[in-house]
């Protein structure tokens, strides 16, 4: 066989390249308890690889945290897929993931199945990321808009249809509202954001909101868009529009957000105000299972908040996954990680609640 000089050179190059790839470091799936040098002070590094999936609400927070953890600990890989709370819980029950992110705590059949998945202990919900749901609007000339729960319920159930409706004007003295139809946007896909927003409206708006809370939007009127980003983009491109999005999406898209007046004065939708509401939530659930009941009628903090739980096994997670899961969740419950949340529009867990969260994480074994 005739091999020309060029072909010979090419062959040697290819073989050499393939041989050199063998010198790369091994990915490593075994867990070892060494801490790496140069890691940040609140990370006790563990190497290994875990998968997690669930809520899209905490997608950006998780991305920040996994990046920070992986940079501090070179042997660790945490893969979080934001495919929805329902899908996340299903993945966890089917043993595909080490923990699930969910906008609502486990209940009914899911709780039974998750307890069964954890061989020797119950499945626990650990609140880790708070979020605020804001009414974002796009009305030129209106810099500050104050809405009461009744007004929000009226706008989102199509009973208040114009911006210069006397009810809106009454809550916004001195603001010139245009004589235009309100273009209302809601979510076309199922989402925990819709679930929490309707929970808030049902609790705070009284008889003005007659629909039950659900992941699917039930009220008539308005237009649906897919995802927080879809609603955000729709509000941004449609004049005289209003819709509900997560605070982080409103900040990213630089949308104006409405102040909410639950009866005690208008409260600005900021991370700090929402943190007050999260911290004052009633804690339910037995043992290390923390299930929060938010007081949607609160007058001291921003009321429309949601909490994303990390669902994992208190005892009974596969022993290969326990060290990295525990280490990662300890990091996310640390002051450093919670401190990162406010700058991206999320709401940190604070105070006594944070102490309980850390105790729950410590009990994972």
């Amino acid at each position, binding site marked *: 066989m005739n091999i020309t000089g060029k072909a010979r050179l090419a062959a040697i190059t290819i073989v050499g390249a393939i041989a050199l790839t063998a010198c790369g470091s091994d990915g490593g799936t075994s867990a070892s308890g060494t801490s790496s040098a140069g890691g940040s002070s609140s990370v006790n590094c563990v190497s290994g690889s875990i998968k997690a999936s669930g809520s899209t609400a905490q997608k950006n927070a998780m991305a920040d945290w996994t990046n920070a953890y992986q940079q501090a600990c070179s042997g660790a890989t945490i893969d979080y897929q934001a495919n929805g709370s329902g899908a996340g819980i299903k993945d966890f029950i089917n043993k595909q993931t080490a923990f699930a992110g969910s906008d609502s705590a486990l209940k009914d059949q899911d709780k039974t199945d998750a307890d069964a998945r954890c061989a020797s202990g119950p499945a626990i919900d650990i609140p880790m990321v708070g979020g605020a749901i804001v009414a974002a609007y796009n009305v030129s000339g209106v810099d500050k808009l104050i809405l009461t729960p009744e007004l929000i319920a009226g706008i989102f159930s199509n009973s208040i249809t114009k911006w210069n409706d006397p009810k809106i004007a009454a809550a916004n003295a001195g603001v010139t509202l245009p004589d235009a139809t309100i273009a209302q946007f809601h979510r*076309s896909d*199922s989402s925990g954001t819709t679930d929490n927003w309707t929970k808030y409206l049902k609790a705070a708006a009284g008889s003005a909101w007659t629909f039950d809370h659900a992941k699917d939007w039930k009220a008539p009127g308005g237009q649906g868009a897919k995802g927080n980003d879809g609603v955000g983009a729709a509000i941004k491109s449609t004049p005289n529009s209003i819709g509900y999005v997560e605070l982080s999406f409103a900040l990213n898209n630089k949308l104006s957000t409405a102040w909410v007046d639950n009866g005690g004065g208008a409260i600005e939708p900021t991370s700090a105000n929402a943190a007050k509401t999260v911290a004052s939530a009633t804690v339910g659930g037995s043992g290390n299972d923390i299930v929060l009941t938010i007081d949607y009628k609160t007058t001291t903090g921003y009321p429309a908040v949601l909490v994303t739980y990390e669902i994992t096994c208190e005892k009974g997670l596969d022993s290969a996954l326990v060290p990295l899961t525990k280490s990662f969740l300890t990091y996310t419950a640390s002051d450093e990680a919670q401190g990162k949340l406010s700058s991206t529009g999320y709401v940190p867990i604070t105070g006594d609640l944070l102490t309980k969260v850390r105790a729950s994480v410590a009990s994972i074994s």
Partner: protein
Amino acid sequence: MSTTLEPAGATAPDGTTADIKGASVRRGDRVFVGLSRGSGILILVTMAAIAVFLIWKSIPSLQANTANFFTTTEWAPDAKPAYFGIAALVFGTVMTALIAMVLAVPVGIGIALFIAHYASKRLASTLGFVTDLLAAVPSIIFGMWGIQFLTPQLQGFMQWLTTYFSWIPLFQNDLGIYTRSIMIAGIVLAIMVLPTISAITREVFVQAPRMHIEAALALGATRWEMVRMAIFPFARPGMISASMLGLGRALGETIAVALLLSATYDINWHITEPGGITFAANIALKWNEAGTIGLSALVASGLVLFVITLAVNMAARLIIARRSDFSGAN
């Protein structure tokens, strides 16, 4: 086994007879026949497996449903008690597919005709290349393009349509909002199925028998008359098959429609108003957060879509079978 060729039915010197059914005794031929038959059987088995899966997985939700599956418009399978129905889904799917077909079939056939018989060689190949390129665009790109570019551009057209054609109930618009409607979804779907229809029809037109074409021209027919007399009868089954393939894509198009439609579960005949939902878009939007009964209900809606597509294809086959007798090309 003999490796020499024996004519069928003949008796070889050693007393063995070749197979008189006409099947070859060569190993290569046998393997090829086996493989072809196996591929056909594989397709049938796959279709049967899909049908069985759909029926099996949808049973729990159909049992749990407290509302009439075919006439209810709401979709709440995870509520207690579960109630959901496909009425709104059927309406949305059929309307968007119908609009897409009405727009895409004439344009697709026109493009194919132009490329095959009217255009110069260079123009034809360029146009063919560009049309086929359209088929390569991912559907999510179409959805994003539809929402961000096409919808604002179509506002003027929609306003004109609803002002001057509101005597047709279909084009009435009581809300003054022209975005996220079945009409716009239908237009985007039409653009998506256009390359499929055009490419297949083009191939069929090119294969029309030259003798018929030249005979028509020799008899003094104009180009258009020649097309009508010699090409269309011959190509009609092919055009119908192309349209059916396009319809299949239009019925099942998922992510583009999920981004474009406003997902309201009602039957609204004013197609320029926001709203509407199709089978595939419903599955895409609700899958992630669905509970157990919810997932089963989505599979049930998938089963209905499967049956609708099957029925439409069977109807198309019937039309082709009937027409081929009169096509004059046989």
